[in-house]
């Protein structure tokens, strides 16, 4: 899958992948896709849940030997106003 930016969360546990994703997505434009690399299995459940809460679109999760590639499209980030700047 083609992404506009990549975020490396390899070796990181909850809540860091989610927190970093929220921060990174602020730098992207609506409609752009962020690729998140992670190896904590919790991401498989957490990222769909986070997308549901925030209104961003989960495009898919790919799994390989190194871990997971998660693709999120920025649709409507409902985060705090001061974080969006």
């Amino acid at each position, binding site marked *: 899958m083609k992404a506009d930016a990549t975020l490396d969360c390899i070796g990181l546990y909850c809540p*860091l992948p989610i927190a970093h994703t929220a*921060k990174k997505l602020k730098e992207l434009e609506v409609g752009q896709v962020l690729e998140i690399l992670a190896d904590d299995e919790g991401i498989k459940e957490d990222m769909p849940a986070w997308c549901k809460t925030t209104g961003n679109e989960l495009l898919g999760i790919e799994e390989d030997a190194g871990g997971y590639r998660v693709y999120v499209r920025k649709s409507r980030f409902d985060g*705090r106003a001061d974080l969006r700047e």
Partner: protein
Amino acid sequence: MAEKERVTLIVFSGELDKALVAFNIAIGAASSGMEVSMFFTFWGLNIIKRNEGSIHSKGIMRRMLNMMNRGGSKRTHLSKFHMMGLGTWMMKRLMKDVNSPQLEELMAMAKEMGVKFIACTTTMGIMGIGKDAFIPEVNSFAGVATYLAEAREGKINLFI
């Protein structure tokens, strides 16, 4: 845009493990676009006491209490297997091993994300400690009415 969801956490416990969980949830909620307030009361106040210097209080009983209950994030220990510091030291090592942030880093992260820290003035009064006992990151000093006013608007309220 829809009104932000509100999360309130009552941090009653002063132990390291419970504090880690509290800040973990706070950061997760803030990352999910929620408004988060943490109410520190009773032993929970120890987490947000400053690490440096001494804490002043009046009267022999309060002075003794605050000597034994000095507090500060760096002095917190595990609720289980503290083992005179060995267990807590080991847990911190294990966390470092897997790049898990220490309590102080989580606190800084939460603050950066706009999580509010509120200290309970009743406990401060009972224990005889003033505002100067706390880290400057504390947003306000208040009581149960403040907590309730926020909690009644929140969908998620936790007592830790």
